């Protein structure tokens, strides 16, 4: 039996759970969660099996069948395309989704009948997300892309009676829509130029395609990724999306859906690599996003806010890696480009694990203290040992301290960016931004960790420990996912050393297999590695002294002058929400007003003008109808005379 032939079942199993819960789940209460666990779990087993088969054999499997026939030349197809990248995504998505659903059974316990809706939507999400990964063409990907967008909208607005949640859901939907429209434009260009959406056919057709049009297609496809993966300047929806339940933030807005944009960039990697400019643009957007999101995370007041900005920042790293890869590939460095491609995806995988863990840990903390405000926490380490230790592992991992997973991938991304700097100076700047981001990442993650678990208990902690219903650590169904994900946050980087290593398994065209010894020598003989380690350690030490030992008072630093203004600017998120509103108001509303004027004065003007002209003409001609019988008689006489004369003349001429 070839398991790959059954790969289409992977998204179907969670979708079956979705249909079942959606139709019959209303009265099932707790059972909903178990059905969801069952459906998603079955999908996960199949996905892991499929991924194992793909990664061990290195096979590429694809099937497709015609879906819509547009004309004899143009058809749309549905199918399955499985390669190493899809395998990695399958592992990440299905595994984290399973853990999050398990976690949700406990986390959403007090939501009553709402659980029905929650598990319905989460199963739908898992199904369509897996479908997105399996797609064999850009159009099918787009269909699932929109479906995950809908699920994201529904789940951000889970507590729809809160105005802020409803607004956040709307914002997420509308802002990603800007990217989706660009994605669609990219699809149109691809289809009109190449006549196909199929990944393999597109990749093969690139050599003969018009390079200008392909550059445009790459640019617009990347526009889709900017929206979905919350890249600058469309990043502002993600921090707002934290209005949803924390499990949703963990699954959709940290570990899976936002990675769809990165996955799209990976799938359109060859198209992007046809143009140096677009590659550079991709890398620049990634680097800039990583940097500015990290700055905003420095002073975010809410625990989930820190994680949201951190997610945006880390996604920036992934995009930066892929952009650098495309740039290197374009300049003929195929092996390095392929490694960079792998580095971006490697970071995607590691990030999904540690950020999923951090969000779930934050969920446990919020579950305990019933507040998201960092200033109200503190001293929780005493009560939540498991959460504290697992989150510490993830924090160290994301900060980039060896040998945890974040170190390997972040270091690789920075290394390839530095390498791309040889071909284009912009990448040197991006590398500097990346190193600064690494420093800030370590700082803000440990700021969060110290503020939550260290120090004196603040009001939220006190209130929870004195009056809370549960003065104990989170339930077991929440702890297991925390521990498993922490283990992966610790160890997923070691996939570099299994078999041919990560870059020997997930790559673009050129596998880069290195033995353990070679890999270690390569990493630890490079001065770049030490720069990023120093940056990370520096960030942790600074956070330790300012938020644990309080030798350096953060409040004092930002109390006056330039730091104060900067702090306010960061709290205002660089005025991005204001700018969005302004653009929405001036751009969209202004345009609507313009259209209103156009309708009122031009369209209505034409219609009314015709009517007025006819009335005026009638006004002229009706004067003939003056009521004087004699004038009628005169006209009659003249008319008849003219006719007679004409008849006579015609008669003579004939």
């Amino acid at each position, binding site marked *: 039996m070839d398991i790959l032939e059954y790969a289409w079942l992977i998204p179907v199993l969670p979708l079956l759970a979705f249909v079942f819960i959606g139709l019959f789940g209303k009265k099932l209460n707790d059972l909903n969660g178990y059905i969801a666990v069952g459906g998603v779990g079955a999908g996960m087993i199949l996905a892991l099996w499929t991924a194992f088969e793909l990664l061990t054999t290195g096979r590429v499997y694809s099937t497709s069948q015609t879906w819509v026939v547009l004309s004899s030349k143009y058809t749309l197809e549905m199918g399955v395309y499985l390669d190493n990248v899809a395998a990695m995504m399958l592992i990440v998505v299905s595994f984290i989704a399973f853990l999050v659903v398990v976690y949700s059974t406990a986390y959403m316990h007090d939501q009553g009948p709402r659980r029905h809706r929650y598990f319905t939507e989460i199963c739908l999400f898992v199904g369509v997300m897996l479908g997105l990964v399996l797609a064999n063409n850009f159009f099918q990907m787009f269909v699932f892309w929109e479906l995950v967008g809908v699920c994201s909208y529904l789940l951000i607005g889970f507590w729809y009676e809160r105005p802020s949640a409803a607004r956040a859901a709307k914002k997420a939907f509308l802002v990603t829509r800007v990217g989706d429209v660009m994605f669609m434009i990219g699809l149109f260009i691809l289809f009109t130029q190449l006549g196909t959406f199929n990944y393999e056919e597109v990749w093969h057709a690139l050599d003969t395609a018009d390079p200008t049009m392909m550059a445009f297609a790459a640019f617009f496809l990347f526009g889709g990724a900017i929206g979905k993966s919350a890249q600058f300047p469309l990043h502002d929806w993600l921090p707002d999306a934290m209005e949803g339940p924390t499990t949703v933030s963990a699954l959709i807005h940290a570990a899976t859906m936002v990675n769809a944009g990165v996955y799209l960039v990976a799938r359109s990697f060859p198209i992007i690599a046809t143009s140096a400019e677009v590659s550079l643009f991709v890398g620049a957007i990634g680097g800039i996003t990583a940097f500015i999101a990290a700055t905003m995370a420095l002073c975010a007041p809410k625990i989930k806010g820190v994680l949201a900005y951190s997610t945006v920042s880390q996604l920036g790293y992934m995009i930066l890696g892929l952009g650098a890869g495309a740039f290197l590939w374009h300049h003929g460095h195929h092996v390095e480009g392929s490694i960079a491609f792998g580095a971006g995806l490697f970071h995607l995988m590691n990030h999904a694990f540690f950020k999923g863990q951090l969000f779930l840990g934050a969920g446990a903390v919020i579950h305990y203290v019933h507040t998201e405000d960092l200033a109200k926490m503190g001293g929780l380490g005493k009560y939540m040992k498991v959460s504290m230790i697992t989150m510490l592992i993830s924090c160290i991992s994301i900060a980039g301290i060896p040998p945890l997973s974040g170190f390997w991938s972040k270091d690789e991304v920075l290394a390839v960016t530095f390498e791309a700097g040889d071909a284009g100076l912009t990448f040197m700047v991006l590398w500097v931004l990346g190193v600064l981001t690494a420093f800030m990442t370590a700082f803000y993650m440990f700021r969060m960790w110290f503020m939550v678990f260290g120090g004196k208990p603040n009001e939220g902690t006190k209130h929870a420990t004195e009056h809370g219903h549960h003065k104990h650590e989170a339930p077991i169904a929440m702890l297991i996912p925390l521990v498993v994900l922490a283990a992966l946050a610790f160890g997923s980087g070691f996939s570099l050393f299994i078999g041919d290593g990560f870059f020997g398994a997930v790559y673009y065209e050129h596998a880069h297999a290195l033995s353990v010894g070679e890999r270690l020598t390569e990493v630890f003989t490079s001065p770049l590695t030490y720069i990023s380690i120093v940056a990370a350690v520096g960030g942790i030490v600074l956070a330790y002294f300012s938020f644990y030992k309080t030798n350096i008072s953060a409040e004092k630093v930002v109390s006056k002058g330039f730091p104060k203004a900067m702090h306010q600017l960061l709290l205002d998120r660089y005025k991005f929400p204001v700018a969005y509103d302004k653009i929405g108001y001036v751009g969209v509303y202004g345009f609507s007003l313009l259209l209103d004027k156009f309708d009122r004065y031009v369209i209505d003007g034409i219609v009314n003008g015709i009517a007025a002209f006819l009335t005026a003409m009638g006004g002229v001609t009706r004067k003939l*109808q*003056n*009521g004087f*019988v004699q004038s009628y008689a005169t006209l009659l006489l003249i008319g008849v005379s003219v006719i007679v004369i004409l008849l006579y003349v015609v008669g003579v001429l004939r």
Partner: protein
Amino acid sequence: MIPLEFVLIISSVLFVIGAAGVILKKNAIMVLMSIEIMLNAANINLVAFSSYFGDATGQGFALFSIGIAAAEVTIGLAILLNLNKLRKTVNVDDINLLRW
């Protein structure tokens, strides 16, 4: 026998006089009389051609025409009488009710 042309000229002259009367006269009774003149011009034509072709049909038509003209004058005068009663005028320039 009087040549046909002479009769036709007479009838044409009569017709034009009648038409001029219809157009120019302001008194409704005069207009009515002018119409009668035009009808008679037509009658003369009918009779003249009847005699010229030796066919009695034209004379028959002329008789009908005279009868209809009499009936029409009766109606016309009745209208004028009522009009005079209502509006105290028979000047056609004042009777322009049938307009926009």
